[in-house]
């Protein structure tokens, strides 16, 4: 029995070693070397200079905004979705856009948000006049939210689906108003989904790159942009790795801090 169980473990362990552990070790190793291949702590020291600290702050701030707005849109959507008749159809409609290549969707927004784009023609027509939308913070957050939103809706929707309806009936029978029911019963029970959704959005949002160039015109510089530059342009793999290592540490801390343990405590 134990033998077969160990046998099952082999693919998992091999995968983890080859594709998770080894790359991380290589990145940590690389982060201690400068462009000329000498051992150095310099990359981490450089990270502590104002430029990179501000970039870190930017990354967190935008990732926070993206997560917040995703949540604000996703929660009501998921809540409404649970009560509709054709749930599967609506759900499919939300998921379908994520089948389209990310780059294509991003390019579409360049066309929509441009000076002579659809949105500006509309604004012009209603009399507001042409605004600069492309290459602003607004467009960056908007497009990012658009891209990440399915990852927020799905976990919240699943946690809503798992709620036993009898709990809601009980709450109503005991005289709770709809708002009270939501605040005291529904919301605490979906906290797990909210947390999973926030993790699924916040962590990739921290290291966004591409969108920062296409939609924000490099007016928003995040750590992801810096990593891309260091690996592809500067070929300063050490610095790129150092940023990646620090990001991994931060993400791990976030995962632990918002882990499941916390969720269960709040439900009680």
């Amino acid at each position: 029995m134990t033998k077969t169980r160990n046998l099952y473990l082999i693919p998992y362990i091999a995968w983890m070693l080859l594709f998770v552990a080894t790359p991380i070790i290589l990145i940590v190793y690389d982060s201690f070397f400068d462009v000329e291949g000498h051992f150095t702590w310099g990359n981490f020291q450089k990270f502590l200079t104002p430029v990179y600290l501000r970039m870190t702050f930017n990354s967190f701030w935008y990732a926070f905004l993206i997560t917040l707005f995703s949540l604000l849109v996703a929660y009501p959507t998921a809540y409404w979705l649970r009560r509709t008749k054709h749930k599967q159809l609506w759900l499919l409609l939300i998921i379908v856009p994520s089948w389209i290549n990310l780059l294509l969707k991003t390019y579409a927004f360049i066309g929509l948000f441009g000076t002579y784009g659809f949105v500006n023609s509309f604004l012009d027509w209603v009399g507001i006049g042409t605004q600069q939308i492309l290459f602003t913070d607004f467009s960056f957050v908007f497009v990012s939210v658009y891209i990440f939103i399915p990852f927020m809706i799905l976990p919240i929707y699943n946690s809503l689906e798992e709620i036993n309806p009898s709990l809601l009936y009980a709450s109503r029978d005991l005289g709770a108003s709809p708002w009270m029911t939501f605040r005291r019963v529904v919301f605490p029970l979906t906290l797990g989904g909210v947390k999973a959704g926030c993790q699924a959005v916040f962590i990739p949002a921290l290291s966004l790159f591409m969108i920062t160039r296409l939609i924000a015109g490099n007016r928003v510089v995040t750590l992801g942009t810096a990593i891309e530059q260091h690996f592809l342009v500067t070929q300063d793999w050490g610095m790129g790795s150092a940023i990646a290592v620090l990001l991994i540490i931060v993400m791990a801390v976030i995962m632990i801090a918002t882990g499941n343990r916390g969720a269960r405590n709040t439900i009680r």
Partner: protein
Amino acid sequence: MKQLVRLFIAVFIVAGGLMYFTSYLNSSEGYSGSNTLTIYNWGDYVDPELIAEFEKESGLKVIYQTFDSNEAMMTKISQGGTTFDISIPSEYAIEKMKEDNLLLPIDHSKIPNLANIDSRFLDLSFDPDNEYSIPYFWGTVGIIYNSDLLGGKTFKSWNDLWSPDLRNQILLVDGAREVIGFGLNSLHYSLNDTNEDHLQEAKRKLGTLTPNVKAIVGDEIKMLLAQEEAAVGVVWSGDAAEIMGENDKLDYVIPEEGSNVWFDNMVIPKTARNIEGAHKFINFMLDPEHAAQNAEYVGYATPNAKARELLPEEISQDERFYPKEELTNKLEVYENLGKKMLSHYNELFLEFKMHRK
């Protein structure tokens, strides 16, 4: 569970079928490793008709892959696992690839058409005697602008970019050498300057340009300028030609302080499998008619003297793309500044990008 298994089986069958089908197609047309030629080039940088013609003439099947920066290309070639037979890097990248032993020497006896190249473009400092590289195109970096949107304003100098009425009107190309380079040029320094004071001065000066900069973008710059998203752009001359082809209100100028002149040369990377075919391709592209057709399609300036004669006069005599001698003398080639300096340039560029309005 049963459904899952069925799904997997279906995927396997489809994938296997497709694989068999492609290998069948390839073998039925007689393609295998030795009669293909893999070209690794910039996007949209060759007339596809010429590729088709070359395939017909040589009987080789061409696989065309693209990159969008010299650095990305070098990273991919030095990492191995690729089989590129031809690549077209810029001069500083050629110098670096030579140092890293990534190139194969080119046998000039197999390229009789080399005689067509203007001698100005041969035997340059980055590759003496053209041992490893053959000129493909050359060009400059300059300012493209839309006078119509700017009330008839024209440009002469890099410093015109700092004019206060250009607020939020400039698009820059996303390249550290280009942007720091014109920062240095605007102060009348060399764009290969490594003096720290000069670099810091250039960075501070670029910082004051921030309110005028709308965005720093990649290849999209062509589309954005053609659609009049912004009135001014700092671009490579070839991109400028392409944009002007789409929107004739735009004009291009090489600023008087001087600018960068660059060369893209054909090389045979070390990973090449079909060295014979690579030589054939280089010779094919140097044929005057082919080079002229390619120059008309791509829009960059050809180093091929015979081909230039074949071009219509409005192209071959256009001083914006084939500048006069006295301006040419002010143009500089990017020197390979070494990894450390390049890294520093990028650091400065990153700081420039971080400037908020």
